[in-house]
């Protein structure tokens, strides 16, 4: 049995991990299909009489201070959270893998330069950067939020990748590939990447939840994706002044956030336990 199939079997036996994976799949479906079925999340049908109304047959999760439908906004906001979470995690993984491979395979001077740079980058408070950028760049598109979160989030991955590359660089199969005339990029792709797949998948999957929380924090401050486009973060901001009289406005996106992040963390924990049996407790 191949190691991948064995890992898949371990994952399938782990109830928490499977629950996480099922919820993630359901959330992806909701994010893709939901916006087609719900009313316009920006519509303000009756700004006076529909302000802060509790859940009803017409508005299942009530309405917000701008008389917009909370359910529709919660469903539409899933696209931002999942898109930024998954996209930024993938991009950060790619960047980290690229730099880690370059540092591990290049000469000692390049290696030193890259890794000292990563040391400095890791000592910087990421959130203050993002705050500074988005404070000035109001209404940045979701793609910019994704790219900037990824650009400030690959440092740890590059260290992991470099460590694996250093441990494999002197191994016989790499020496054999070199003897057959293969060069750095070919060795990286054909011989090293298969060994890096497991740690990369684990670190990226555990990163998704944190990125979703980071994006939510930014949009709670009104930064990043521009209101009135719905995000879970800015929906909670909309509801924070009427917490006591209309708690459903902040509750719906908050519960959606917790559920999403719990699901990704369950699946991520499961992937780690399945792919790295030594780390499993």
């Amino acid at each position, binding site marked *: 049995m191949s190691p991948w199939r064995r890992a898949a079997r371990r994952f399938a036996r782990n109830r928490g991990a499977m629950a996480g994976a099922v919820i993630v799949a359901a959330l992806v479906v909701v994010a893709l299909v939901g916006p087609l079925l719900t009313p316009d999340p920006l519509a303000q049908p009756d700004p006076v009489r529909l302000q802060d109304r509790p859940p009803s047959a017409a508005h299942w999760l009530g309405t917000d201070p701008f008389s917009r439908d909370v359910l529709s906004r919660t469903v539409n906001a899933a696209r931002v959270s999942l898109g930024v979470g998954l996209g930024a995690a993938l991009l950060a993984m790619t960047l980290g893998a690229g730099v880690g491979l370059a540092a591990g395979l290049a000469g000692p001077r390049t290696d030193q330069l890259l890794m000292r740079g990563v040391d400095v980058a890791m000592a910087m408070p990421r959130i203050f950067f993002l*705050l*500074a950028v988005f404070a000035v760049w109001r209404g940045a598109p979701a793609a910019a939020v994704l790219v900037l979160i990824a650009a400030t989030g690959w440092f740890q991955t590059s260290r992991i990748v470099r460590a694996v590359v250093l441990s494999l660089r002197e191994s016989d199969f790499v020496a054999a590939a070199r003897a057959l005339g293969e060069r750095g990029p070919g060795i990286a792709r054909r011989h090293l990447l298969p060994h890096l797949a497991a740690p990369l998948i684990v670190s990226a999957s555990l990163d998704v939840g944190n990125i979703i929380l980071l994006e939510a924090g930014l949009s709670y401050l*009104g930064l990043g994706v521009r209101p009135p486009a719905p995000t879970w973060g800015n929906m909670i901001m909309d509801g924070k002044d009427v917490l006591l009289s209309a708690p459903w406005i902040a509750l719906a996106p908050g519960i959606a956030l917790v559920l999403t992040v719990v699901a990704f963390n369950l699946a991520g924990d499961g992937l780690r336990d399945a792919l790295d049996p030594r780390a499993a407790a």
Partner: protein
Amino acid sequence: MLRFLARRLLFAAVSVAAVVLFTFLLVHLAPGEPMLGSAEGARVAPAVLARQRALFGLDRPLPEQLARYAANLLHGRLGQSFVLHRPVADVIGAALGPTLLLGGVALLVSLLVGVAVGAAQAARPRSATDTLLGVGTLVLYSVPVFWLGLMLLLVFGQALHWLPVAGMTDPAIHDALSPLGRVVDVARHLVLPAASLALVQAAAFARFQRSTLLESLGGEFIRAARAKGLPERWVLLRHALRGALAPTLTLAGLSVPYFLAGSVLVESIFGWPGLGRVTYDAIFARDYNVIVGTALVAGVLVALGNLLADLAVAAADPRVRLDR
């Protein structure tokens, strides 16, 4: 030891300089105008705007602005706030104490609670206690800190009226209180914001502590300790935990950025007069000098956290030598 300190301080200085450089460049290069945060869309006469820009040197070429900022910085000056019309150093200085109090208490509480919960889980892996605490820490670890803060505010402040929800003191009575009464007053105001920050991070520490402790319990020295007939509690606390504490202390040092980020969100919810609040206000006012200044202080705090963690690890683990 001294060489270690010197090297780490040099590294810290380099990273702080990098923070300042990058934040400065990002703020000035990103699209957008300074000083127009709240007046966005409002009509400001071009002449007024130009005069303001000239006053703060914002009409000069970027390299010149950067050089001037760096020169000021070397003299200990962080520039002038565009909005508050006070030196940035004063603004930040006044806010530093409350943030260190809030963050310090939250860090200490989360570390104690996290290590205790992680140890309780690792003592009986796969037991009902372990599973229950595991679910609890997983959920708390996944909660956005600002949402947790709002929920605590809703329940314990607005619904039950147990605790105050705004500011650091009660302005109506604080000055009339005895010294002990003042401490109690601040402590009561501290509970909810500190709990918001601490609960989430305690869950992170607990998850981490559980796995390092389980790894450490698999070691040869644990078998030896058990073979000597030592009671299990002694084995867990004196032998396993001692070795497993070092990674958690390192993580605690690395968690400073988390507390700083959390303070931006939590301080604005509870009206805590700290660095996070200053950052939050500066963002909305596009107060460039204050934004760069807070990033600078954040960089210093992060570097200090890393340094303290290294020293704590060396103190906890006699195998670690700092003079390598």
